[in-house]
């Protein structure tokens, strides 16, 4: 369970261009649920995701993971926490050019120094599961948008995290690929993953698989809709 308590986030604090990205956020995100943050650009969705995922720290307030404060962890522990608990899918996928699909997928596991052969097999299994095994040895530069996203998801799953954080995952995809993405997400939830996403896309936040939609505006939570438990 992830809890946010009185979380504020300001950028350029004390300067003329100060931005209050998040204002007094109090929120509890349950396990094994799909939560979507929606709202216009600049509403604070992405900032909130970066705080939850330990990619940045709040200006004030606390973030807790399973009851333990994570927002004040020193960087060394925060990096370990990110590796073990969170998988990230970025809007532009952030795949690393110049190396193969398989190497991109294996990359987040390298700091844990696993044995190479089992890691390679695990990465191949993930690509198989996401229906792109034939792309394993290709450079990422030649992938289509949908394929790149699947590689990004495989990469997010390589360390077997309990939470997947996805920022605008369907922003660069057509309708058919967006539907395929939702199918993958549904499967991940069945596997016991917690999914936290941001999206402008009504196809995402209106999807039946989504458990909770949180509407944001100007750094505030303005509305919450929790659906009846999905089958």
């Amino acid at each position, binding site marked *: 369970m992830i809890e946010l*308590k*009185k979380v*504020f986030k300001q950028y350029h604090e004390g300067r003329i261009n100060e931005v209050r990205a998040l204002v007094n956020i109090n929120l509890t995100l349950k396990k094994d649920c799909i939560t979507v943050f929606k709202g216009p650009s600049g509403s604070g969705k992405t900032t909130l995701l970066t705080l939850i995922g330990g990619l940045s*720290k*709040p*200006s*004030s*307030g*606390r973030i807790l993971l399973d009851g333990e*404060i994570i*927002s*004040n*962890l*020193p*960087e*060394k*522990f925060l990096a370990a926490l990110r590796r073990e608990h969170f998988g990230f899918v970025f809007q532009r996928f952030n795949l690393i050019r110049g190396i193969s699909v398989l190497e991109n997928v294996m990359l987040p596991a390298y700091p844990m120094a696993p044995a190479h052969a089992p890691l390679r097999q695990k990465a191949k299994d993930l690509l198989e599961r996401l229906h792109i095994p034939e792309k394993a040895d290709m450079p990422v530069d030649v992938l289509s948008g949908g394929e790149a996203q699947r590689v990004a998801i495989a990469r997010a799953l390589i360390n077997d995290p309990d939470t997947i954080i996805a920022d605008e995952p369907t922003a660069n995809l057509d309708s058919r690929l967006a539907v395929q993405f939702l199918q993958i997400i549904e499967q991940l939830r069945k596997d016991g993953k917690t999914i936290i996403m941001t999206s402008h896309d009504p196809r995402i936040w209106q999807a039946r698989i989504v458990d909770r939609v949180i509407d944001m505006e100007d750094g505030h939570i303005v509305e919450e809709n929790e659906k009846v438990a999905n089958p």
Partner: protein
Amino acid sequence: MIFHTPILAMILASVITSIIVLWSAFFALKVVRHWDITSGHARQLTLEKRTYLVTTALKFVLALELFSLILFVTNADQMAPMFTGAMCAVGVLNVNEYGMPALLLKLAVFFGASVWLILNHADEQGRDYPLAKHKYALLTILAPLVLITSLIQFLYFYNLHADVITSCCSRLFVPEGKGLQASLSAMDPMSALYMLFISFGLLVLLAFWLRGSKRNNRFGRALFGPVAIGFFTVAIIAITSVISSYIYEQPHHHCPFDILKWQYGYIGFALYIPLFTGTAFGLAAGLMSLFPTPSSLLEAYPRMIARNITISAVLMTIFMAFILLAIGRSHLILFG
């Protein structure tokens, strides 16, 4: 002032160190006054974020200070041919009234910086900055010392003039002279050796006893710090009064700096490096024992203290091994 490359390097290093330490000291005061790990207040979060930057910068400059001590002494030794009357570092340090105080202050900074770095290492093992307040409190004491040392060192270098006729070890480290150097040289060699071996025995016995005793023997562990300092003092006395004579194979040559020269196989480094680092680890173990065990390091913290004690005892043993080697290799017969 003599524009010598190592001098310029040391001045540059001390300026960088002083700036970073001064900036860190202001931050340290804020930590000492306002640190509250349970708070989610913006000020606390700012302190938590900034401590990473401050610590990284401090680690760099304080490590620089450790090497600066070695450079300071070796440079003084190498500059001896520039001054009339100087044969080793002692003569160069005596060119003006700032040399010896600069050396003593740099020694103090060496120990302060070492202890701070060891304490910081322990702090970095905890998930909640368990020793932050202690290490920044220590920094508020260390910072003025670093600044004064930089100033005195600069005054020493600034007032180095090649036309000065100086006194060297053959005039200062003699039993007939006056001052601390003369007193150290005048110490009875047999008594000095007894003191050295007895204090080493005490230190090793204490280390063994602490290894075997209960994990939370805070008093015993805290005692290790003063014992390490005591052994260090006795060791310096012994080196000056008797060990140096064995190394030079001359009963009346007591200089503790000449042993750093190549003519004596740089044995001074083999003696001083384990002695100084061993003392630093012992001091750190003693200091860490004074603090309550942090809740986030319940298991690890006592282990860290025990490890520091072991490292200290091992380094002191290495020091003693070189002492025995120096005595064993010598053709000088002082007793019997």
